[in-house]
């Protein structure tokens, strides 16, 4: 058991993490670009117009994946935050911090595309509908996490404090979600259900799937790229950084 956990935590060492992700960033980035091109081609050229909503429905190909990613990334962020808080793993703390801006971006995209879709469909850019509202609250929670991180100068303390916030948030997310749903629901019912066949054309369904993977790959690439930079900044006095960046070894300056 102990050996197995060492295998996993091996990549938690900053230098190894940096080396491994250097290649992964490119891999995921290229994959994301390819999937975006394929997915958008399928969505805007191959997929037929909807018989009710015409062409305006096509925005779901960028709306649905971003809404999913926004929710999912919060969970991943909270898990990394918990790992960082419990096992004191620096790379996990950095990952949690690196996920937050991508998550906020996804929540914002979901809100924006939702509003753009809402105008032709509901006749208004903003409707106080349950899902829009809970996405808005999720967006605020990302902003709170980022703001708390930014407000605390000591990096270690910032990481720990925002980890507590993320964990409190993750317990609250389902409560908020259900209370907002209970409060009001006007949104069209879920179109993709796990239990029954989707009530949309196969091409539309596959397009959504391709786009979801594209968003995944993009998010992983963006998060890793951000985490690498953060890691370099936090470890700037470590020997491995000067080695990797071919910097002349400077005199060890004490931490400010």
């Amino acid at each position, binding site marked *: 058991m102990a050996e197995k956990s060492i295998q996993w935590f091996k990549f938690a060492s900053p230098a190894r993490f940096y080396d491994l992700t250097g290649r992964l960033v490119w891999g995921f980035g290229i994959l994301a670009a390819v999937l975006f091109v394929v997915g958008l081609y399928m969505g805007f050229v191959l997929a037929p117009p909807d018989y009710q909503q015409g062409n305006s429905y096509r925005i779901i190909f960028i709306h649905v994946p971003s809404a999913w990613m926004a929710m999912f990334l919060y969970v991943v962020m909270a898990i990394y935050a918990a790992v960082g808080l419990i096992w004191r793993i620096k790379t996990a703390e950095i990952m949690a911090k690196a996920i937050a801006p991508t998550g906020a971006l996804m929540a914002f995209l979901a809100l924006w595309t939702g509003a753009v879709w809402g105008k032709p469909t509901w006749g208004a850019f903003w409707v106080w509908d349950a899902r829009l509202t809970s996405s808005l609250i999720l967006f605020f929670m990302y902003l709170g996490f980022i703001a708390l991180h930014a*407000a605390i100068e000591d990096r270690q303390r910032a990481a720990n404090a925002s980890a507590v*916030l993320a964990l409190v948030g993750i317990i*609250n997310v389902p409560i908020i979600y259900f209370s*907002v749903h209970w409060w009001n629901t006007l949104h069209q019912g879920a179109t993709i259900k796990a239990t029954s066949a989707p009530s949309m054309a196969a091409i539309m369904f596959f397009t959504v799937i391709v786009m979801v993977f594209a968003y995944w790959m993009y998010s992983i690439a963006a998060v890793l790229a951000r985490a690498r930079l953060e890691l370099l900044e936090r470890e700037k006095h470590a020997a491995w950084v000067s080695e990797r960046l071919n910097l002349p070894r400077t005199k060890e300056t004490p931490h400010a």
Partner: protein
Amino acid sequence: MLINLPLLRRDLTLALRRPQDALTVVGFFVVVVALFPLGVGPDPQLLRILAPGVLWVAALLATMLALERLFMDDYRDGSLEQLLIAPEPLAFLVLSKVLAHWLITGLPLVLISPLLGIQLGLQSEEILMMAIALLIGTPILSLIGAIGAALTLGLRGGGVLISLLILPLYVPTLILGAGAVDAVMHGLSAQAHLSLLGALLILAVMLTPWATAAALRIMLD
């Protein structure tokens, strides 16, 4: 013992020696509610419909305003650090402090709410329901808010930051609390709202003191 009585008595005594702190919060609550009719017009029908939401949002903001002081004085004079090294679990001490804080700043809001309800044209059952919902709901606000107060301890601009951290977490309480009054207004039973609000309170009592204690240890270590 879940509640530390000496700590509770100390906090209450300190608050009674400086009653203006508690009165400021009540004053804020009353003024915010009084501003709404000036903003939306004096139509009694409209005001009655808006009343549950207005009262609840004002209560949320008033609680928020009071939160900064929850740990601040103890933090400044160093007694918070003594609490951290006390042999008792910090979460229990936090619970005592939050209880004292609620008695000083939350309970007065509950007690003054019927007066504001009358001002906004609520009927007697609605006023009663508003007071009951606030009685169950404001402790939740104080408990969740304590986490934010601990996380922003000693930060510059902590007061603004705390609202960004905590207000999203207040959403379920707001929905259920205002919903209870709404239900009564429409002749429905508010049982479901009150039950869920009670469930939230139990959950908050069980979980938030631990999160607050963890946050305090992080911010003071």
